C-alpha cells in the first residue's frame, strides 16, 4: 500500500504557500493595478517570470542562494541558524516565488476592471488608500481573489523540478507527492505511482472545474483563470 505521507505533505505545502501568497500577492496586485509609474512593466515582467522559466532555473538559483557556504544562505545560517535547503520552509519560499503570478494576475485584472469611480467615491468620503482597498475594492473582486487562491493552490500541487533540486527527497520533510511518484516509477513500483498520480489528477481536475464554474457564474471579465 502506498504511503499517504507525501500526499499530506503536498497538501500542507500548497496550503501554507497559498496563505503566504495571499499576504504577499494582494499588496503587489493592488500596487500594480493602481500605479502609474514607468517601472510597472518591469515589475510585471519579474512577477510573471515563473510562468515561462523552467523550474530547474529557479531551483538552480535557489540551491546557490540557500547554500550555507556563501551569501544569503551563509548569512541566514550564521545569524539566525536558519537552513532553507532540504527543509519544508525552504520549499515554501521556493513555492511562493514559483506560484507568485498565479496569485497576482487574477487579482490584478480584477482590480483593474473595477470602475475608478469606486475608488474616487471612497476617497472623497475620507477613506485612506488602505481602508479603500480592504473595505471597498477587495470585496468587489471576490471571484478574482478566489481564482487566485485556488490556482495558487493547484499550481503548487504540481510542483516538481524545483523540489527535486532543493528538497533532498527526505521522507515526511520534503518528499512531496510529485517526487514520490518519480521515486516509485524509478523503483519500478508502478502500483504506488498509480495511486499518487490518480489522486493528484482527480484533485487537480476538481479544483480547475470549480474555478471555471465560478468564473462562468460570476464575472464576465475573467474569461480565463489567468
Amino acid at each position: 500500500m502506498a504511503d499517504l505521507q507525501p500526499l499530506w505533505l503536498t497538501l500542507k505545502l500548497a496550503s501554507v504557500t497559498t496563505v503566504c501568497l495571499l499576504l504577499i500577492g494582494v499588496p503587489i496586485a493592488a500596487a500594480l493595478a493602481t500605479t502609474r509609474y514607468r517601472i510597472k512593466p518591469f515589475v510585471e515582467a519579474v512577477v510573471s517570470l515563473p510562468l515561462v522559466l523552467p523550474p530547474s532555473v529557479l531551483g538552480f538559483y535557489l540551491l546557490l542562494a540557500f547554500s550555507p557556504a556563501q551569501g544569503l544562505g551563509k548569512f541566514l545560517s550564521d545569524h539566525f541558524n536558519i537552513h532553507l535547503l532540504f527543509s519544508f520552509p525552504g520549499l515554501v519560499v521556493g513555492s511562493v516565488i514559483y506560484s507568485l503570478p498565479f496569485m497576482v494576475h487574477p487579482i490584478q485584472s480584477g482590480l483593474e476592471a473595477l470602475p475608478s469611480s469606486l475608488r474616487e467615491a471612497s476617497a472623497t468620503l475620507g477613506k485612506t488608500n488602505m481602508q479603500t482597498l480592504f473595505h471597498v475594492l477587495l470585496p468587489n473582486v471576490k471571484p478574482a481573489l478566489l481564482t487566485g487562491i485556488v490556482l495558487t493552490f493547484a499550481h503548487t500541487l504540481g510542483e516538481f523540478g524545483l523540489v527535486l533540486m532543493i528538497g533532498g527527497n527526505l521522507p515526511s520533510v520534503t518528499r512531496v507527492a510529485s517526487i514520490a511518484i518519480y521515486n516509485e516509477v524509478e523503483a519500478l513500483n508502478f502500483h504506488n505511482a498509480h495511486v499518487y498520480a490518480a489522486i493528484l489528477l482527480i484533485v487537480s481536475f476538481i479544483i480547475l472545474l470549480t474555478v471555471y464554474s465560478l468564473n462562468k457564474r460570476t464575472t464576465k471579465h475573467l474569461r480565463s483563470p489567468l
Partner: protein
Amino acid sequence: MKKIYYRLLIAVLIMPLCATAQKVRVAVAANAQFVSEALATEFKRTTGITAEMIVGSSGKLTAQIEQGAPFDVFLSADTKYPQALYDKGLTTQKPKTYALGVLVLWTIKDIRPSLPILARSQVKKIAIANPELAPYGQAAMECLKVNRISGLLKDKLVIGESIAQVNQYLLTGAVEAAFTARSVVMDPELKDKGNWTVIDPRTYHPMRQGVVILKTAANAESAQKFYDFLFSDAAKKIFEQYGYR
C-alpha cells in the same frame, strides 16, 4: 539556383542519418561520468566513433532501458541492474565487470574527512545517493550500519537521486559531507575541491560494475567496438587514473 536549394535541403535532411552511422549511445551510471568522458575521448581518437554519454542513476537507466530507451551500451554501478536486464532477455550477454567501484567520503575544504567527524556539529548535512536506486548509496548505507552510526546520523542525511546530485550538493556547499565515488574526486577538475578519504572496503559489498550491450542497439557494430575497447589496456590505464580498482 533552385537546384542548389534542393541539394542543400536534401543534404540537411540526410545529415542526421550520416551522424548516426558513426556513433554509440552509452548509458552511464553517475559515478562513471567523468571516467567515461576520458574513455570517449580515447575511443574517438582510436576509432573515430563518437560515444554519446547519458548519465543517471543505475536504477533510473535500467527503468528507461526496460521501457525501450534507445541506448546501445549500459555501464552500471553494479552487477544487479544489468543482470536484471539480462534475465529479461534485453542484453546480448551476461554482465561483465569492467571496474571495481571505490567508495569515498568527501568533505568541504575546512573539514578533515573521517567517519567520527560526521557526528560533530560542524557537519550539518551529509549527502548520500538514493540507496534504493544507486549502488554507491547502498554501499554508503552499509558502511554507516556496519559502523553503527546510521541511527545517529539519520537526521543529517540528505538523499540525492544519484551520485551526480550528491556531488552537486557538496560542490555548492549545500552539505558539508558526501559519500561519493573515488572516480569523482580523482577527476582533474575536482581534485582540489575539498578533501576526501577512502572508506574501508570491508564495510560494504564490493561494487562490481557491470557492462552490457543491449539487444535493441541501433549501432550494434559501434557498440561492440566500444565494449571491446572497455577491456583494452588503454581503457584499463584510464580506469586506474580515475581510482577504480
